[in-house]
């Protein structure tokens, strides 16, 4: 029972991440009709917002200590972050909280990046073939990640969560299990709640604002909305920016779990496409549902009991589910007819 509960938690946590990444992708699909292979790169850029903030906060004053030498004979450097110099303990706290703080800078940065991307590139590909869209966005993804690599190197860069959230919560104890039976890291719990909040906000935004109404109408029937004389271009730009922000936020908050490196976008690209397609192209609810479905089933497939029964199932479970779902439901869980079938 406790093992079961743990895997449910794992599944939810994974699902939250998957859903968050897939949400923006399916939004762009549904409204703009663009296959965006650079979506993983947006996720990666988001996480590097956290890295950037951290390195800004830890900009150091370097003093050479002529008394002590390094192993290669140059004077030893003594480094103190400026911010600690200026603010003392408060500076330390700021550094400690760099990941949550990065949300504040990630929102404007990602929005700006999204708008620039849409205006500068994506816009010109609305009417082009999907194959062309794939090629150009894939090229963009490579360019973006190579730029990040040349700045930050190829190795993962650790981004610790605030000390307050280090360690884990003994959830089992609260539910009457034995000690240590159900232990879960605080940060992962926060991530799950965070993804819930972001998903809910996106839905609320689309459900309860006029802007959202138009976008939803656009997803249902692009041509008609265009005929109504609504300035759809500006809205499309904003939708793309929104997708970029959501992907970016997913990236920022994921950094304590997965130390970011320049290639992480590509690692998530295939997965996010599978999630979107299993959910049904252009269906927001489908993306969220598929994200959680895949997350939970992946967690269960990784259990020793399951894996010893069917060796290697944890390696392929995501794809197996995708195949089964698509064979049973031709357009994914919540897909509509005629979207992206030609």
């Amino acid at each position: 029972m406790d093992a079961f509960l743990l895997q449910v938690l794992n599944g939810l946590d994974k699902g939250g991440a998957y859903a968050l990444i897939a949400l923006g992708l399916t939004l762009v699909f549904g409204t703009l009709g663009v296959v965006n292979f650079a979506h993983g790169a947006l996720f990666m850029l988001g996480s590097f917002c956290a890295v950037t903030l951290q390195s800004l906060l830890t900009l150091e004053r370097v003093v050479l200590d002529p008394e002590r030498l390094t192993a290669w004979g140059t004077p030893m450097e003594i480094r103190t972050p400026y911010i600690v110099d200026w603010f003392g303990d408060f500076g330390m706290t700021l550094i400690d909280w760099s990941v949550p703080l990065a949300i504040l800078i990630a929102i404007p940065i990602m929005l700006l990046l999204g708008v620039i991307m849409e205006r500068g590139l994506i816009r010109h590909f609305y009417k082009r073939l999907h194959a062309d869209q794939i090629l150009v966005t894939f090229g963009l993804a490579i360019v973006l990640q190579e730029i990040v690599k040349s700045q930050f190197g190829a190795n993962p860069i650790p981004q610790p969560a605030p000390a307050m959230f280090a360690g884990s919560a003994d959830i089992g104890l609260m539910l009457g299990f034995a000690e240590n039976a159900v232990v879960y890291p605080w940060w992962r719990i926060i991530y799950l709640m965070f993804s819930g909040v972001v998903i809910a906000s996106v839905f609320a935004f689309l459900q309860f604002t006029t802007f959202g109404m138009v976008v939803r109408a656009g997803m249902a029937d692009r041509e008609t909305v265009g005929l109504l004389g609504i300035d759809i271009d500006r809205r499309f730009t904003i939708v793309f920016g929104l997708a970029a922000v959501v992907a970016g936020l997913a990236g920022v908050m994921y950094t304590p779990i997965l130390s970011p490196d320049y290639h992480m976008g590509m690692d998530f690209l295939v997965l996010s496409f599978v999630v979107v397609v299993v959910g049904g192209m252009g269906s927001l609810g489908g993306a969220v549902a598929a994200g959680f479905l895949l997350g939970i089933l992946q967690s269960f497939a990784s259990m020793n009991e399951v894996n010893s029964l069917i060796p290697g199932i944890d390696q392929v479970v995501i794809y197996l589910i995708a195949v089964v779902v698509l064979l049973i439901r031709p357009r994914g869980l919540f897909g509509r007819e005629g979207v992206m079938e030609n």
Partner: protein
Amino acid sequence: MIKFNVKNKDHILLIGFIIVVALAPVIFAPIGAGYPDLLQKFAIFGIFAIGFNILFGLTGYLSFGHAAFLGVGSYTAVWTFKLLTMNVIPALILSTLFAGLFALVIGFIVLRRSGIYFSILTLAFAQMSYNLAYSVLTPITNGETGLQLALHDARVLDGVFGVTRGEGLPSTTLFGMAMSGWSGYYFCGVVLIIMFYISLRIFRSPFGMMLRAVKSNQNRMSYTGLNTRPYTLAAFVISGMYAGLAGGLMAITDPLAGAERMQWTASGEVVLMTILGGTGTLLGPVIGAGVIKYFENIFSSFNEGILMDAFSFLPEMLQHAVVSITGLFVGEGWHLTLGALFMVIVIFLPGGLMEGIARIGNVTRRWLKPKPVATTEADAAASE
């Protein structure tokens, strides 16, 4: 009329193609690509992309899992070397057949869907193949290390025909001719020419027309009395066999088969090759394959030393500046150049490199004889 035109142009195209393949070692030497391994790769990935184009270019079905068939071809070939004989002919035949069989099974399932759903299904099957080959199927695939020849391999047929066992590992042969180095390249080159010719015939055949009809309007096809599924399946299997053949050739020129050949990035690569060169054109996929492999092998080899050398004519200050900027695009930065190339091509030449070539051709022709020519359409027909 157009008939006459097409046939003539095809002959010229084919003869030109054969000449380029035959003289490749000389033609590509000035750009640093005139060595056997890279030319083998040009030929092998050319075949892979030509086959992929029969599916994607003609029917419009975008498979994101074709590398799986390449992998199956490679594994089959290496197993043939291990179990039967080091002669490459059985390996080539079996790898094509097995890949075709695998494609038949997979295609039967995935062709129930079209569009992006089809793409994701192929991707899913290929990723499953890759993941399993990398881990659980290690007894068959030798996992991460890749399947290799071993001294104690059975090689039954070689035993029967009394091929003597050397002290070291044997190498692949075509009735005694070693299949590495230049002879290996010419073997690949001959196969490439044959496969190119087959693709040419398919493009110009009624069957090819049916495949283009699939891409254009499946609904009309059904109401015209044509069953679209077998047509798409046939295209899928044919392109799977091309991939298997390419995989077999990879093992023939270099008897090792690794799981990473089946990864989605490898499938993506052939998609990029085809689009980059020009989807649905005859030559485009081969050119796209060559460009990508050239970047991978040659651009990645330019280190700082070579750059300093190349820009040594500049004043020292400028030299360093230029080297540090160009250094971003070559050596470890070759990916950046490739990414930028993808973007530039697709933005400025929607039809891929073939469109660029056609445009240059048109401009020169107009420049040479400035009368309105009606050949443009024939050109398009020839290249489509």
